[in-house]
């Protein structure tokens, strides 16, 4: 079930001879994508050969590969219930004004592959590692073990993007756009759009420190959408703001999702995931419970959450164990690509040299025509 998803099976003769000689070239220097770019790289075509079963999407290729992810934190704890032997150490640490540290296992051995065109919901109770997973995928935190590979830099739309509190909202929009790597011209072009989405009225000219938390969150969300990322990570962004903003942001989200290659969505509302995702991942205490079709996973999670909330631990445990039993563990391996044969010019590749010049003049001509049309 879950594991099959939309991936076609390899022909039997291939999988028979393969397992023993599977290449495992993991630590090879990785090249290909433009680092720190949020836009999709020019696609090389050789990867896009998988036709999905349904036939709805033309091609599927992996955009994010998560391999054996593990995240442990060492953090101070005031819990004194553990071992006697630690007593001496605690005394020493107390003298330094420090607290004893414990290891928190935020994520344990998470592996999966996300494909272009997929919208993946991540469900789980508070503290199950959902946000940590997103932050690691976005490259904002380094995992203790394992790695994440992606086609372009994923952009996390969360509620903790930092802005300068003393600057007016308008300036912060510009700064945020530049921080995401937009050029000044692109940032200038994006500003009206961002301000409109944020919908803060005259408050956009006031310093950020005068904003309410809801207003600030709206502005951050609006800024993050300006980059039009290819891989989009959304951390409950839709939960911020009032009803009017929610409506607007949902429209924008829809547009972003359509433009994006792959979307990850963290939400407590299993219904949101059911409605807007094609696939879902259920995390429980940092472990992957189930990875499968959104409908199926979301329904199971809802049942579990209901049993958990109604204080029926036996039912909750049964649902969780069933899901665990059905889970098929994923192992991700990387294959080195065939070296390109000769200087083949890809159709979507970026033009260079003379071609680049021609493309530039062409783009300028088109832009001029468009402004002319706009003037009329």
């Amino acid at each position, binding site marked *: 079930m879950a594991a099959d998803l939309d991936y076609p099976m390899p022909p039997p003769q291939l999988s028979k001879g393969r397992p023993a000689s599977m290449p495992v070239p993991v630590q090879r220097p990785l090249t290909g994508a433009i680092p720190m770019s949020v836009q999709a790289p020019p696609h090389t075509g050789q990867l896009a050969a998988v036709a999905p079963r349904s036939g709805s999407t033309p091609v599927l290729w992996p955009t994010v590969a998560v391999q054996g992810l593990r995240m442990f934190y060492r953090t101070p704890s005031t819990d004194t219930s553990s071992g006697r032997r630690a007593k001496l150490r605690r005394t020493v640490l107390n003298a330094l004004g420090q607290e004893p540290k414990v290891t928190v296992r935020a994520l344990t051995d998470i592996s999966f592959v996300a494909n272009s065109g997929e919208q993946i919901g991540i469900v789980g109770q508070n503290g199950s590692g959902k946000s940590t997973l997103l932050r690691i995928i976005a490259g904002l935190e380094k995992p203790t073990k394992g790695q994440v590979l992606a086609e372009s830099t994923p952009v996390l739309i969360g509620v903790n993007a930092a802005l300068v509190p003393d600057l007016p909202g308008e300036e912060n929009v*510009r*700064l945020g756009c530049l921080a995401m790597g937009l050029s000044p011209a692109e940032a200038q072009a994006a500003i009206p759009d961002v301000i409109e989405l944020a919908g803060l009225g005259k408050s956009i000219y006031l310093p950020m420190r005068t904003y309410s938390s809801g207003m600030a969150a709206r502005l951050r969300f609006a800024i993050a959408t300006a980059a039009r990322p290819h891989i989009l990570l959304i951390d409950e962004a839709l939960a911020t703001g009032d009803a009017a903003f929610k409506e607007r942001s949902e429209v924008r989200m829809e547009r972003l999702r359509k433009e994006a290659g792959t979307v990850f969505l963290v939400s407590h509302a299993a219904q949101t995931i059911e409605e807007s995702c094609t696939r879902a991942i259920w995390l429980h205490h940092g472990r992957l419970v189930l990875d499968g079709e959104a409908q199926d996973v979301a329904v199971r999670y809802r049942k579990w959450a209901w049993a958990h909330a109604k204080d029926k631990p036996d039912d909750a445990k049964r649902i969780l164990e069933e899901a665990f039993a059905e889970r098929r563990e994923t192992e991700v*391996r990387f294959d080195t690509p065939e070296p390109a044969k000769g200087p083949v010019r890809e159709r979507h590749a970026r033009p260079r040299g003379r071609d680049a010049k021609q493309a530039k003049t062409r783009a300028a001509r088109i832009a001029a025509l468009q402004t002319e049309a706009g003037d009329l």
Partner: protein
Amino acid sequence: MSSGPETGSYTALFDASPTTTKLVTLGNLSRVGARPPLGQYVRLLWARRHFLWADARAKVTSGTRQSLLGQAWLVLDPLINGAVYFVVFGLLMKGGRGIENFIGYLLIGVFLFQFTTASINGGARSVQTGKNLIRAFTFPRAALPISVVLRNLLNLGPTLVTLAALIYFIAPVEEYTWRLALVPAALALQVMFTTGLALLVARWAAALPDVANLIRMSMRIWLYASAVFFSFDTLLEDRPDIQRVLETNPMFIVLDIVRDCVLYATTPDPMRWVWLGGWAVGMLLIGFITFWQAEESYGR
């Protein structure tokens, strides 16, 4: 259903194993958050120059926005500073023993050293204070300490204007020569050196926050070792060996060159330029590469 060696991603099921192996072709994928090669890192940093500039300018203006006089403080601050030193050292202590035009000597030392102090202290804390930015955006982290230096450089502008005015009115120089044109070169080398050192200490302080405290103290010691308030020539007359060691101190060289050019109409010793150039280029390279090496560890 298609398949074959060109297949991008497929599922291979092993006999009775509950494990699914997904083979992913590396073609377009690269590790998220990976440290790019040095050349690419520099290019990425260059691509963010607009952000660096906007960020530095925003912080310079926002730092004074809450005060009544606002940006006037950018000039008032060094002006008051200079006045205090003038009163203490010029009027109360009747100048430095044996130093010609002591007020000018002192002002140049204090103002130029202040830039380096502020940049190094700020640079050491830059990863810590930029944590929110690190957790929100992907960018070459070297932008943080460099942004601090840039911010202090923007602050240095008004300071230099004040310095020039103070020297012109309070500590007049007999003649202004062509050597004034050498001052920007010395300052450029000072900025290069400071940037390199800021990057270096930023890595140390990011690994161990306690370092930032030590650096504050080291800057104090360095201040005394750079002949800001006194002259090595008079103080260490009988210890030429120590004097020779102290004269390789890059900050001393900067101050010495600028004083020679502005106050004493003397052409600075070419060896001074060689030493300073070496310090500036060497420190910038060492600092940048050291910072780049730990790129993946910042803000964790």
